[in-house]
């Protein structure tokens, strides 16, 4: 008996090893196409990007090592980068709060026994599929149309551009976040709600003590999705205001783009800004990873 199981284990092990060996031979077919294009599109440019952020250059072929000069210039030269950082942070905070709040309210409404919930869901989700450039011009027309009655345009005042972007972002992302909240709410066991009802909890108490703790994973996902999407925003910003008036509504991604392609001799500074941008985005992503991991352990 023991010998038999021993034999089976050995047999299984040798099959797995045999399989691995057989698959390994096919590396060029299975892994190489992806790996090569990944190297071209990501690995090599990423390594070059790190190096180039320490260089002064106009084309990549002729570089001159300047140390931390680019980083110093990025923060001290003109105030564009710091302004963009401040504008982006402000925008991110406002849009994360508004989008998640509204999306959650919609999700609560749509998980009730109301007619046509599927129809509403479909409508609310639709703007999410439209591309950033198209979205930007749709809202450019509408906001300019409203402001026309006040003898202004969206580029008259930086505040108009700011709130225009917030409205645009809400319109685009509310439906998406709502869907994630809905799937979270639908996963709550009805028994829990019922138990709370029997214990005499009112609607508000049920929301705070039952629903919210139960959908914490959905909340984490939505917060970080809106956070990274808002922080990395480019297309919408570019099409809606293009940074006007006077770079005041410029977000980080647009500022980096303009530094690269708008000013000759500043490519190194642009790359340095991009590295700083990368570090911030990576920090956000790693925080999310840490939070979701630690939650998983708790459960």
């Amino acid at each position, binding site marked *: 008996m023991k010998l038999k199981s021993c034999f089976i284990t050995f047999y299984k092990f040798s099959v797995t090893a045999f399989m*691995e060996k*057989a698959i390994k031979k096919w590396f060029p077919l299975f892994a190489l*196409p992806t790996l090569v294009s990944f190297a071209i599109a990501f690995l090599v*440019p990423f390594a070059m990007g790190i190096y180039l952020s320490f260089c002064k250059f106009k084309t990549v072929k002729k570089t001159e090592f300047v140390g931390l000069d680019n980083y110093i210039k990025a923060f001290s030269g003109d105030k564009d980068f710091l302004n963009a950082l401040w504008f982006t942070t402000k925008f991110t905070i406002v849009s994360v709060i508004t989008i998640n709040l509204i999306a959650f309210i919609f999700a609560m409404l749509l998980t009730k026994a109301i007619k046509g919930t599927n129809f509403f869901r479909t409508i609310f989700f639709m703007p999410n*599929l439209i591309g950033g450039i198209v979205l930007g011009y749709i809202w450019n027309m509408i906001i300019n149309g409203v402001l026309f009655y006040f003898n202004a345009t969206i580029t008259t005042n930086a505040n108009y551009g700011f709130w225009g972007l917030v409205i645009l972002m809400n319109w685009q992302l509310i439906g998406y976040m709502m869907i994630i909240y809905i799937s979270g709410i639908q996963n709550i066991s009805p028994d829990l709600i019922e138990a709370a009802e029997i214990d005499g909890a009112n609607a508000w108490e049920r929301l705070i003590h039952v629903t919210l703790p139960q959908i914490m994973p959905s909340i984490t996902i939505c917060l970080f999705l809106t956070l990274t999407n808002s922080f990395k925003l480019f297309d919408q910003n570019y099409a809606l205001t293009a940074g006007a008036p006077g770079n005041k509504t410029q977000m980080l991604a647009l500022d980096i783009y303009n530094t690269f392609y708008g000013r000759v001799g500043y490519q190194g500074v642009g790359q340095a800004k991009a590295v700083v941008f990368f570090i911030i985005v990576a920090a956000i992503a790693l925080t999310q990873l840490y939070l979701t991991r630690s939650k998983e352990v708790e459960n």
Partner: protein
Amino acid sequence: MADLNKKQWTTEPITPVDSPEWRQFLAGAAKDMNRKQLKTELDAKQTTKGAKPKVPMTGKDWVKFAILVIISIAFIVPILLVLMNSFKSTISVSNEPFAFPSGDTFVGFDNYNNGIEKIDFFPAFFRSIFVTVFSVAFLILCTSMCAWFIVRVKTWYTKLMYLLFAFSMIVPFQMVMYPMSFVANQLHLDNMIGIVVIYLGFGAGLAVFMFAGFIKSVPLEIEEAAMIDGCGPIRTFFTIDFPILRPSAITVAILNAMWIWNDYLLPTLILSNQERTLPMAIQYLRGGYGSIDMAAMMAMLVLAIIPIIIFYFSCQKYIIKGVVAGAVKG
């Protein structure tokens, strides 16, 4: 199925789970064992087929319903405004965007003809389709194969590859865009074929990550059996794993199709101005010095939105599922 087997012996009425498997099970059980009780159950199910559990709506619910109707109208209005304005003259678009076209402000399809001519709409449209279709097809094929290789072969370099793919997901595009356009230029990838390679490389991170997550849950025994029966790795992958990967492939396809179809910055940097994709073409309407021909713009926005809406309504179920799955895993 084990769960269902248990239910069959309970005297309580079976909870109405309406799934194909359940029906098949009921039908099969009734046929094989000829149990009267199950048969009546099945009949009862068929008579109520398609009818949803009806909970009567109270007055409060009607208020909520009304609120939702108003909000959903507010959600569609921007698109309807664009549609309406696409039939108006340029001055009317910027001066009275909320007025219906009438009399001399109505210009018919002039804006459409004008815009199509100005930005070469149809070539741009077909270029976008070409890039999206081929990039997504290659992404699914190549990254699923690569993910299978990474999961099934366990050595130092597959672990390293997996880490690098995961790492690439947190790097924003701005970080690599300048060197990438240089590399693409040096390798003569700055054309319609080259951009497919670039999209394959840049989309590989998320796609490999998602496929690998799924492949880990595929039991090794099936593949072992196939291999013992004489299948080589290629046949094993394409006859066994590839069909099982369908749900993940749909998710990957939808996420990437949405990204590539709407992407503006990457094609701008890679392609020449003669090879504009749709988002580039729309941006092209903003002439120098920020002046925009708003009337033509409205017409082009309508043409850009229509295919997306058709696509959305034709495979809505997959799109919403795919996007949610992508959000949860990514």
